[in-house]
């Protein structure tokens, strides 16, 4: 690199041994808008400076203006590939803060939805890693099953992607038979497709050569960088919020947490793949548990919290208290108790934390989202240093950076 060539450069030219390459913000391989200004020596990356904030939407300032229910739509747009997890994380935080206990059936239904969204998030990540290495077919095979997951969400909440699913205390409506039929169809057909997807990638010579040994990080450095979720588990640390601080009755389920060794792209792919199998098993267990509720127990889909859960429309039109609660909830005039809470759930990317400070008003005084993508994207220069540009592309997609979560 420091070789002295017999070249006389003209006056005023920048004498540099490395090329500056602008990677982003509009680039087909960046999943969302990030900019990396790379210094490359030939094809090898020497260093990188990142720029983020191209989609900063000021969620935290927005949340100071809105009562609790109006914050759920903005949590949707954090990790939009798995928005039910964000919604339920927020509702779990509110429930913990307001001391609301949810019935078991609600917990199990929530687990079903959260694991479906985890599958949907990991599907996007793994299939896009495939697309970035040049294999487009896997993406098309599994998108069919993402459409089925979207149909299940539609049965419950009415919308596909940014779901705004659930309410504080439970769900807005009971799951219909159509929802359960679609869930059974998913559980029957999806494992075959996942196996087909695996057969395309997991032992594929080209894929393995592209992803093994690139973008690796050690467990100590990963912890220092604040990694959580599949990226940290691929580096060797088995930290999973569902196991450490079980929420929504996760302690009733039997599942393992897959852990990798080197933290490179291949390990991340394998960890996400294994987590999808674990999610399928959790959904099966939850479905059996839900089916075990019979009679009137099977009609329970929310906790009894009149201050936060909208009363039935028949009651609103006939009873006075129900009308008052309806008005107060819709206009957001319920006063929150004073205090502060930090609650975390296991999102698709890791520990999604909500730090809520309330001073007794109708809106939070401060709401801060602990966004996993923002925190582990800092490690990107260290991950790609010394690698090729194409490895930088694959590393970025295997980290599962979601722009909405990064910039909030």
């Amino acid at each position, binding site marked *: 690199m420091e070789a002295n060539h017999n070249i006389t450069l003209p006056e005023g030219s920048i004498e540099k041994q490395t090329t500056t390459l602008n990677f982003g*913000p*509009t*680039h*087909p391989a960046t999943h*969302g*808008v990030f900019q990396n200004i790379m210094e490359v020596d030939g094809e090898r990356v020497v260093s990188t400076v990142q720029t983020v*904030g*191209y*989609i*900063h*939407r*000021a969620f935290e*300032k*927005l949340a100071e203006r809105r009562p609790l229910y109006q914050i759920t*739509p*903005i949590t*949707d*747009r954090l990790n*939009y*590939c798995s928005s039910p997890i964000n919604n339920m994380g927020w509702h779990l935080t509110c429930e913990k803060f307001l001391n609301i206990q949810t019935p078991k059936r609600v917990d199990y239904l929530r687990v079903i939805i959260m694991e479906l969204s985890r599958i949907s998030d990991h599907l*996007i990540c793994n299939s896009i890693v495939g697309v970035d290495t040049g294999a487009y077919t896997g*993406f*098309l095979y599994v*998108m*069919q099953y*993402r*459409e089925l997951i*979207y149909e299940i969400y539609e049965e419950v909440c009415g919308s*596909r*992607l*940014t779901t705004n699913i659930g309410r504080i205390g439970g769900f807005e409506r009971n799951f*219909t038979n*159509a929802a359960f039929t679609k869930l059974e169809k998913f559980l029957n057909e999806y494992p075959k497709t996942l196996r087909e997807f695996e057969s395309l990638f997991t032992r594929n010579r080209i894929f393995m050569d592209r992803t093994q040994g690139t973008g690796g990080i050690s467990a100590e450095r990963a912890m220092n960088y604040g990694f959580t979720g599949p990226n940290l588990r691929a580096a060797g640390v088995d930290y999973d919020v569902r196991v450490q601080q079980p929420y929504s009755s996760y302690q009733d389920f039997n599942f393992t947490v897959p852990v990798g060794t080197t933290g490179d792209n291949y390990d991340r792919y394998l960890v996400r793949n294994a987590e999808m199998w674990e999610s399928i098993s959790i959904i099966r267990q939850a479905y059996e548990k839900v089916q075990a509720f019979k009679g009137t127990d099977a009609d329970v889909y929310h906790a009894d919290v009149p201050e936060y859960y909208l009363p039935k429309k028949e009651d609103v039109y006939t009873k006075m208290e129900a009308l008052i609660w309806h008005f107060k909830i819709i206009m957001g005039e319920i006063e929150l108790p004073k205090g502060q809470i930090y609650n975390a759930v296991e999102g698709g990317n890791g520990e999604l934390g909500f730090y809520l400070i309330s001073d007794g008003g109708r809106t939070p005084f401060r709401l801060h989202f602990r966004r996993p993508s923002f925190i582990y994207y800092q490690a990107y220069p260290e991950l790609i240093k010394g690698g090729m540009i194409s490895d930088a592309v694959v590393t970025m997609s295997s980290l599962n950076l979601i*722009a*909405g979560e990064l*910039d909030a």
Partner: protein
Amino acid sequence: MRPVRFNIHPKEAEISDAISMGIAPDGIPGDGFFATQLSSVVGLARKNSLWPLPFATSCCGIEFMATMASHYDLARFGSERVGFSPRQCDLLMVMGTIAKKMAPVLRQVYIQMAEPRWVIAVGACASSGGIFDTYSVLQGIDQVIPVDVYVPGCPPRPEAIIDGFMKVQDLVGQESIRRRNSEKYKALLNSYGIQ
């Protein structure tokens, strides 16, 4: 069984022998020739082979990925090849929130596109800022570039994105050949500060 209130008497599609014919432009048919306006032929060719540039920033981008996938297949409309280079694309599909930091980038991409070019603003955030009425979000991309079609929704369903795309196809099919050189178009671009 959910009670169905809409579309209980659906319109039958006019398909004979499982082939439905496209609508030909007005013209004089003959034995081995078809005389019509040049702009109709050019419009017909252009509208069935639009190459989009997906400028996907956030959630609407995921719905676009669902539109490109096999269930809602956008490739049937001729956009098999989505390009990421503005020099080679006709249709700029802006999907997702555009923050003020991103606006100059968007403008630069639009300027790099060659005429004729169309812009479709997908989603509420691209159309008007969406639910983010904040200090950092551009309240609609028509503050920086001229837009042809707006698709509302948050995010719009893939069917809505395809509907927007079909409206762009209508615009492309009926566009006059001289439009891009006309005074009105030049005035429009000048009002955005684009030469």
